[in-house]
């Protein structure tokens, strides 16, 4: 119990700014996990987002290498990450539109190539670089600048989701019909993919590259069982993401375990629990 209280002491103590940053990162991330995660889920592009998030490691590796060798001094890993994320989003998006049947192969290729590039460049980077803090996130590394970027993206995503809600809903439900109604469905798809790419880069500071996708799908999936429409799913999954993030932060602190992994385990347990509950309900009602 004392550790539990210890978390709240640390949260409000000026001596532990990183705890407060971690807390705000959780709150700001939850909005993206909820709103963008719902869109990714109903548009069924989680696989595409997964490939983008893993490809990001390539950009991070190159940035670290360029920066450590002095070729491009002080290059932030974030820059390489964004470039790789957008590039892979563009490639996957184009292939998905041009030839749907090759999509799976390209997803696998981008996923593997991106990660391998990252590992290779990190191996040649002078000094010690640990890929695992990027793979699994390191909540202690979150800076105020990261928080500002997250907040900015939150605002952008909420505004876009609110303004284009009917178009997002319609293209997710029935792409061909939406096209007949005059919606530029390809543009909508590519914009959603690009925003997801940027979000993945910002979100990996919180839960890491490997688990971003879990957090973009598990809260939305959990909320999806009871939601009556897409807005309800967005709101519900934001609340679930908040709950999971907070529970992960506290338990990670109390048990001295990695927070990102804790958050995902809690989210996964909740999702599986609700899936089982839903299955039982369906059986009964038959």
């Amino acid at each position, binding site marked *: 119990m004392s550790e539990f209280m210890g978390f709240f002491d640390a949260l409000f103590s000026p001596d532990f700014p990183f705890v407060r940053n971690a807390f705000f990162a959780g709150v700001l991330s939850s909005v993206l996990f909820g709103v963008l995660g719902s869109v990714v889920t109903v548009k069924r592009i989680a696989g595409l987002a997964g490939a983008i998030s893993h490809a990001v490691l390539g950009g991070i590796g190159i940035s670290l290498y360029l920066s450590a060798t002095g070729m491009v001094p002080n290059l932030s890993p974030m820059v390489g990450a964004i470039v790789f994320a957008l590039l892979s989003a563009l490639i996957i998006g184009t292939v998905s539109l041009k030839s749907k049947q090759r999509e799976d192969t390209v997803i696998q290729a981008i996923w593997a190539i991106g990660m391998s590039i990252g590992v290779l460049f990190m191996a040649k980077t002078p000094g010690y670089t640990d890929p695992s803090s990027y793979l699994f996130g390191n909540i202690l590394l979150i800076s105020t600048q990261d928080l500002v970027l997250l907040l900015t993206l939150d605002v952008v995503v909420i505004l876009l989701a609110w303004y284009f*809600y*009917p*178009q997002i809903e*319609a293209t997710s439900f029935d792409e061909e*019909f939406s096209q007949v109604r005059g919606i530029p469905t390809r543009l909508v798809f590519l914009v959603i993919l690009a925003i997801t790419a940027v979000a993945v880069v910002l979100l990996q500071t919180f839960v890491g590259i490997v688990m971003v996708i879990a957090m973009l799908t598990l809260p939305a999936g959990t909320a999806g069982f009871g939601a009556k*429409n897409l807005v*309800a799913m967005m709101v519900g999954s934001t609340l679930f993401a908040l709950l999971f993030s907070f529970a992960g932060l506290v338990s990670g602190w109390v048990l001295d375990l990695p927070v990102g992994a804790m958050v995902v385990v809690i989210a996964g347990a909740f999702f599986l629990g609700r899936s089982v509950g839903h299955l039982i309900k369906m059986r009964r009602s038959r």
Partner: protein
Amino acid sequence: MSVPIVLHFHDVSFSYPHLTVLEEVGFHVHEGEFIALVGPNGSGKTTLLKLILGLEQPKSGTIELLGQNPSKARVQIGYVPQHASYDPSFPISVLEVVKMGMVEARGRQPKEKLRQLALEALHQVELASLADRPYSDLSGGQRRRVLVARALASKPNMLILDEPAANMDKESEQRLYETLAKLKGKTTVLIVTHDMKRVSALTDRVFCIDAHKEGKVGRTVVQHMLEEEPDDGVKRILHDVEIPADQCRYPQEAGNE
């Protein structure tokens, strides 16, 4: 009185990358006509509808829809697709599906107006009582009729339905045709059906995608004679009586094409 042509195929050919589907297709449809389009599975019926809606582009020839380029005019069409890619975990109510029939390229219309029009369309297919139910609760036949309501919600002048009655229970099919009967004459209807032998008695003319022209790989569209059957509201397709695809009951226009 001349009745305007709403759809006109001029010598249209279409291929997918490795498959020639249609060759030298020419026919036209007048405003208010009830047209059936039949053909075996895989003959290109859905493809032809995609051409009408500008979702695919002809390899050669031109298509005029409401006197315009299909991709311009298609917003005025009510479209009921064959395979509405449907994900049962998509959270949405019946009424919201119907509202999507009025979605526009950007922005949105007033909530109350959308609701009113959507309910009206659900009345037309006799499903208004299910408006607030989750879409996934409905039977397959009911979902098809909801998609008809979605197409009707924007009050289109022309309705295009792609095998709406395939795998439908008898009751749903009957109700669907009751809905279409009320539209007959006011709304141009182009309906793709799977039965090659007979069509609904509502049908004015029938087109078949079946035959090949001499020396051609792709299929073409021919028109067949219809024979009134004495019973149960159907017309029989006389496959041995072929009429030129461009012939119709408005000779004054057939002349000046």
